[in-house]
């Protein structure tokens, strides 16, 4: 694995500067059913293709960002900070 990610703050950087933070998922409401919490905690989509995910720029600006990455080709379509407009 040696692709690059574009950090919205620092520009294109080696993936080794980042920590992978998993799929972007919707956390259930606090009083959601156990079943829903179970799925959130223990199952992942494990998408083959494009997915939205978290990355932390550990050796850079130390901010969490989100990215759309193709898990097959490692092509990173977009990156943004989560408080920015996604589009």
């Amino acid at each position, binding site marked *: *694995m*040696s692709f690059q990610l574009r950090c919205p703050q620092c520009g294109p950087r080696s993936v080794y500067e980042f920590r992978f933070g998993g799929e972007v998922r919707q956390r259930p409401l*606090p009083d959601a059913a156990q079943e829903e919490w179970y799925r959130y*905690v*223990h199952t992942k989509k494990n998408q083959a293709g494009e997915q939205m995910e978290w990355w932390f720029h550990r050796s850079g600006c130390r901010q969490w960002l989100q990215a759309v990455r193709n898990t097959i080709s490692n092509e990173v379509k977009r990156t943004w900070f989560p*408080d920015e407009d996604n589009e």
Partner: protein
Amino acid sequence: MSTFDFDGHSVNAEPGDTVGSALYRAGQRVFSRSFKYHRPRGLLCAAGRCPNCLVNVNGVPNMPACVTPAREGMVVRHQNAWPSLETDALSAAQHFDFLMPVGWYYKVFRSLKLWHMVEPHIRAVAGLGEPPGVDEIKGEYEHAWWHAEVAVVGGGSSGMAAALEYAGRGASVVLIDDQPSLGGRARYQSSAADLAAVRERVSNEAGVRVLSRSYCFGLFEGNLLGVLQPNPHGAVKERLIHLRAGHVVVAAGAYETPLVFANNDLPGVMLSTAAQRLIRLHGIKPAATAVVVGGGPRAAGVVADLKNAGVRIAGVVEPAAIRSASGGHCVTGVKTDTGSIPCDLLVICGPLVPDAGLLAQAGAKLVWNQAHGAFLPTGLPPNVSAVGSVCGTGLAGTPANRGGASKRSFVCVCSDVTTADLDGAVREGFDHIETLKRYTTTTMGPCQGRMCQLAAVEICAGLTGRSMDATGVTTSRPPNPPVSLGALAGPRHHPIRRTPMHDEHQQLGAVWLDMGDWKRPRYYRAGSGDETACVRAEYQAVRERVGLIDVSTLGKLILQGRDAGKLLDKVYTHRFSDLKPGRVRYAVICDESGVILDDGTIAALAGDRYFISTTTGNLEFVDQWLRWWLAGTGWDAWLTNMTSGFAAVNLAGPKARETLRKITDCDLSSESFPYMGCREAEVAGVRSLLVRIGFVGETGWEIHCPAEEGPKVWQALMKAGAEFDIRPFGIEAQRLLRLEKKHVIVGVDTDALTTPIDAGMTWVARLDKPDFVGRAALTQASQAPPRESLVGFEMQDDTLPDDGAPVVLGGRPVGRVTSARYSPVRQRTIGMAWVPVDHAAEGSAIAIRSGGRLVQALVKQAAFHDPEGGRLRQ
């Protein structure tokens, strides 16, 4: 001129010589002994691509002599031969080849026991050089990270043209060439066009950075090239460059490979390009009489170069006419369809193979092209291109195999695999090129298939009746060519973190313990220096008088902003938004499955300002975790990592208050500064944060001050405590002190499945809060009793079980010890252990396996020392 040592003899080297060329000039013809049969082997490719001239240079094994520059004072040793290269006793192996067909040891040693008995002997006899010992590795290796708009691999005519073209368009170009100087085959073939003018232009082009004698060993995702550059400067032996390029141009050319016929591995059987290199690059007349195997203009060019060097040409033989080479140690002649010709050099114009490994690694498909007689790259990914003979330009096919199955026709010179071996393997059913490779190890030796791949594919296709395309090639993987392990490992640097009080500890006789990158005192050597006695003395100081420990390694974070309390309420299991300024609370982080991730304390400095401590090892995690829960919320909360900014100590013991009182104006009475309180005050004139907590179970204060003032505060406390015989204490005493209080260490007493409910800390999980991370899981867990419980135990004697010792019930392991120490206060061994919940009641008898026997212990619910916590609150 310089001299170097080869097997105890002095060898002269001319300027520009390699170890190989100097040895050849000095008359050396046998350079190595083969892997399996110990047959003599001589210079074959003279380009660093074959295994024949691997030697040990200055202790580093498997260096190709033919491309290793000769340097004054070098110590060069042969490999894999005993007692010498000329008379290798192990060459008797070739007379027993009928006992050792491909895969013989799979078939012979079918008992694992037998295999383990013979394996060391086989390994000693077969193989390559000996790896050096750790201390024998001289010199340094380094890594570098470069960026270029364009990287060109190959310094021949095509590579130089590409570099000039891109540079002309204003791009920054790095040109990587594995030769000592630019020019490619024009350097050693008089028939090639003269490139002096182009070389001149490239050298003068400011936009092109040339790396000579440097190898690209891999092309990875995102156009990342692994480049090995020898002797970049000073004492550095090799530099590994991680080169990221916007565009990669592969102009690696084509290399020559052997023909397969009987005795084709004899010293004196040499590729035509090897002979040309010896002549043109090193001014060596390679032999008196040569026979050239080849045809057409290529052979004519080789003949001309040999004649120019004064070599008599005894004949030019068409490849189809060759039968075998003859000779014992070295070639003495060649047998053809029409007769025998004596010679002392057999020059082979072998098939040219495009050096397309990097392109295949980048995702290109290699497709057979009959006209060029080569597998050519197609389907190149974007941002990678190929030019020159790597694409087939100028290549005309010659079949490699010139005979039937024979035990003396070597396909793979690395592992001594013959045409007979391939024939047998295919008949045994290994008829796919990938299984044939794995079964026979063809293409798996040091040359990584560069000498044998084409011949192996051709033979496999012939034996199976499939086309070259249907047979295909084996997968190309990095590293290609080989890379030294030292270069991959890089500089042997390891970061060390020292606390601000490091020198104080050193002077006090600290015995160090590595915790992550940190150095922490394990204990302080005093008196006899016996660890048990030292730890006991430190322990007693804390329990009876006063002790001081450096806790600067704790993670220290400041969180501030209107929504700081809201974030803490969300991430920590306890409630913090209601924590009054001046108060401290124990703090636990769980994940969404309720598992404990870290613990620490949180002090409220003001309504919107909190001081968070984390365990030493989990700071980075907690920092990232808090930032993740904050990301995208828009909350007004700001996290600052102050770990390196603050020094911290813990002053604890019955005399702690009297000690601290001497150097602070802060009112330390329990009425105004109770247990679990915090104050900002001056200590020894240094603005500090005082936190009254008690990990070790005595009255005590954690004191945080600016890092640069740490030694001053430490010294002042030691001085103030002198009248009470204050002692510095280390990690070992701290672990014993906290164990007597049954204070849990996350990651030692808990594991990756432990929830606060399992650990008996239900009180930290405020399930009445509307939401926090892990609430759903903990709510569910709280509704059913846990299966296991973390309890304290007291041994019935002074046996000291290891951490992890099993708790045994009815002959079966049902739990485990997490921590155990001899307790001075209980005068026996105490500890904590996971036990089944029906054995967790006070006084339950459990058995612990220690030192091969079962020892009885009793479960203790309360802390072993001061169970009511009165001493903490005094």
